[in-house]
C-alpha cells in the first residue's frame, strides 16, 4: 500500500463518526439521485413507448406545393400545404416511404368524426380505417387488446375495435353491435375486440375499422388522411422526417415534434429532481469539507513531522485527497447499491395512472447513465471538499509549525 494511502486511511478511521456522517450523506445522495432519475426516466420512456406504440414515430400528412409567396404559412419556406388535408396518391407515397432504410412499417389511415350509437347510449367518436397487418407493424395494438380477438376482427368485414373508455361509456362488450352514423348513412358494426392504449384521449374516441370499409363508409375511395410510419431507430425520427419531407414533398412530423410539450415536461422534471437530490450530496460534501478542514488544523504537527522526514507538499496533499477518494469510493459503491435496491423496491410499488399512459405500478428505467451521473456529481463535490483542505495542508510550512507559529 502506498505510504500516503496508508496514512490517509489511519487519519480517516481516527475520525470515524464525522467521516461516517459524510459517507452516509454521499450514500443517500447517490442513491436518491439514482432512484429519482430511474423514476422520471422510467415514466418518460414509458410515455415514449406508449406514444410510439400508438401513433408511430412519423406522421406523413399534407402535400406540399411550391409557391411564390414567401409569407405563406407553410411547413417550410417557399411552400404551402394543399387545401383538402388528405394525401394525394397515398399508396404511391407509402411505397416511396417504405424505401427509406430506417422505416420498419407503414400504415395508411383514413380518419373522420362520426356519431356512434350503442344499444342505450350514443357518443361522438372518430373512425380510423386501417389495414390490420400494416397497422400492427407500426403500433403495439396487438399488445393493447384487453378483450376479444384480433383474428375475429380480421375475418369480420364489419368488425370494429373499440377503445376501452368508449366501450365502457357506451356499455359495449365484445360481440355486441353498434351503429355508426355519418354523411347520411347508418351502418352496423360488431365489437370484435376492445383495446386500451393508456392514453385516455385515444381510448375514449377511437374506433378502428377495416380501411376498405372506412373508405366506403366515408365515401372516400382510395383516400388516406395520413400515413403512420414506424422506424427501426425512433431516436432518428427528426432527421428522417426532414429527409422524407424533402423527398416526398409531404409534411412529415416526428414524434419528438408532436409530443414536444410532454417531452419538455419530463425533461424539466428529470432535471429538477437531479438538482434537488444533488443538494443532499452537496450538504454531505460541505460536511466532509468541514471534517477535513478540522483534520488539517488538528494534524498540523503531524504534517510538519511528515514534511521534516521528507514527505513532499504533494504527498501531504495526496494524504488528504486520498481521504476524499476513500469516502467517495465507499459512498459511490454503497450509494449505487442503495440506489439499485431502492429502484427495485420503487418499481414494486402500486400506483394507478391513466391519462397520458396506463400503468398499475411505478415505472423505472435501469440505465448505467443514472449511475454515472450520480457518481460524477459525487466525485465533483468530494473533489472540491477535499481539494481545499489538501491545498491548505500542502502549503503549511513545517518550520513555522514546529516553532509553534503556524497560522
Amino acid at each position, binding site marked *: 500500500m502506498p505510504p500516503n494511502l496508508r496514512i490517509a486511511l489511519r487519519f480517516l478511521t481516527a475520525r470515524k463518526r464525522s467521516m461516517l456522517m459524510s459517507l452516509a450523506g454521499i450514500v443517500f445522495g447517490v442513491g436518491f439521485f439514482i432512484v429519482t432519475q430511474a423514476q422520471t426516466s422510467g415514466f418518460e420512456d414509458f410515455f415514449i413507448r406508449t406514444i410510439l406504440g400508438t401513433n408511430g414515430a412519423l406522421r406523413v400528412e399534407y402535400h406540399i406545393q411550391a409557391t411564390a409567396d414567401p409569407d405563406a404559412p407553410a411547413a417550410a419556406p417557399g411552400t404551402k400545404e394543399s387545401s383538402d388535408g388528405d394525401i394525394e396518391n397515398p399508396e404511391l407515397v407509402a411505397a416511396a416511404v417504405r424505401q427509406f432504410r430506417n422505416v420498419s412499417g407503414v400504415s395508411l389511415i383514413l380518419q373522420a368524426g362520426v356519431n356512434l350509437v350503442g344499444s342505450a347510449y350514443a357518443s361522438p367518436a372518430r373512425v380510423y380505417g386501417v389495414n390490420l397487418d400494416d397497422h400492427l407493424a407500426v403500433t403495439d395494438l396487438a399488445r393493447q387488446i384487453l378483450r376479444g380477438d384480433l383474428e375475429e376482427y380480421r375475418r369480420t368485414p364489419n368488425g370494429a375495435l373499440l377503445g376501452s373508455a368508449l366501450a365502457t361509456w357506451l356499455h359495449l362488450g365484445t360481440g355486441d353491435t353498434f351503429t355508426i352514423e355519418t354523411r347520411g348513412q347508418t351502418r352496423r358494426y360488431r365489437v370484435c375486440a376492445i383495446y386500451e392504449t393508456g392514453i385516455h384521449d385515444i381510448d375514449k374516441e377511437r374506433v378502428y375499422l377495416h380501411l376498405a370499409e372506412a373508405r366506403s363508409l366515408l365515401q372516400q375511395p382510395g383516400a388516406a388522411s395520413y400515413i403512420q410510419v414506424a422506424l427501426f431507430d425512433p431516436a432518428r425520427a427528426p432527421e428522417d422526417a426532414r429527409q422524407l419531407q424533402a423527398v416526398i414533398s409531404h409534411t412529415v412530423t416526428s414524434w419528438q415534434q408532436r409530443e414536444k410539450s410532454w417531452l419538455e415536461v419530463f425533461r424539466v422534471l428529470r432535471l429538477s429532481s437531479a438538482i434537488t437530490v444533488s443538494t443532499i450530496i452537496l450538504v454531505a460534501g460541505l460536511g466532509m469539507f468541514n471534517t477535513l478542514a478540522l483534520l488539517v488544523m488538528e494534524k498540523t*504537527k503531524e504534517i510538519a513531522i511528515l514534511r521534516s522526514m521528507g*514527505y513532499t507538499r504533494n504527498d501531504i496533499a495526496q494524504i488528504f485527497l486520498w481521504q476524499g477518494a476513500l469516502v467517495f469510493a465507499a459512498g459511490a459503491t454503497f450509494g449505487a447499491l442503495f440506489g439499485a435496491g431502492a429502484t427495485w423496491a420503487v418499481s414494486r410499488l402500486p400506483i394507478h395512472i391513466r391519462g397520458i399512459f396506463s400503468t398499475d405500478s411505478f415505472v423505472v428505467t435501469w440505465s448505467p447513465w443514472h449511475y454515472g451521473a450520480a457518481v460524477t456529481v459525487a466525485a465533483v463535490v468530494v473533489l472540491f471538499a477535499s481539494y481545499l483542505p489538501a491545498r491548505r495542508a500542502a502549503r503549511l*510550512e513545517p518550520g513555522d509549525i*514546529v516553532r509553534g507559529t503556524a497560522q
Partner: protein
Amino acid sequence: MHVLRGVSFAAERGRVYAIVGPSGCGKSTLLYQLGLLDQPDDGQVWINGGLMSVADDGRRTAARCRHVGFVFQFHFLLLEFTALENVMLPMRKLARLTPPAMEERALGLLAVVGLGDKARRAAAHLSGGEQQRVAVARALANEPTAILADEPTGNLDARNSGLVFDLLTSLARQNGQTVVLVTHNPEMAARCDDVRPMRDGQFVR
C-alpha cells in the same frame, strides 16, 4: 530583522555538537536552517557537498529525507500508528529498502532504544519517555548524515533525559553521524564534543 547574523557552523561525522544560549537567541532558527525546514534570506547551507540554501522545495525535501533526522522537544509521533509504523514512515518515503527489510530495520532500531517488546503498541499507549525514544529511532531510520535535535529531552524527567541523550550520542558515534543538539541543559552540553554558545543571533565563541 536579522535573527542570525554572521553565523558559520560546520559539523563533522561522528561528532556531537551542542548549541546553547538564552531563549530567542536564534538556536532553533539555526537548527531549522541546517535541517532545511527554513530557507535563509542570505548565506549558504551545504549538506554532503550539495548547496541546499538555493535549492527548490523538492530538492530540499528530498535532502531532508536522505540526509537529515529530526528529534524535537515534542515527539510528534503519529498517534494512530504503532511504534513500529512510526519508525517505518521515513523508510517508506525513501523506499530504499523492501517492506520486509524496512520492518526488520525498524524492529532493530526499536530494540536498540529499548522498545523491542513494544514495537507493535500504538504510539498513543506509550509513556512520554518511550514516545521520545521512538522519535529517536525514527530519526535514525534512513541512516541520515545529520541528526538535528531541538531540546530533545525538554519534556522528559532526568532518567529519561539521560537515556535519550545517551542513545542519540552513542548511536551517532557508532554510525559516524553528526548530532547537532540545541539545549538549555548545561550538563548535557558539557558531555558533547563541541559546545557553541549563541547570543543575539551570533556565536559568541
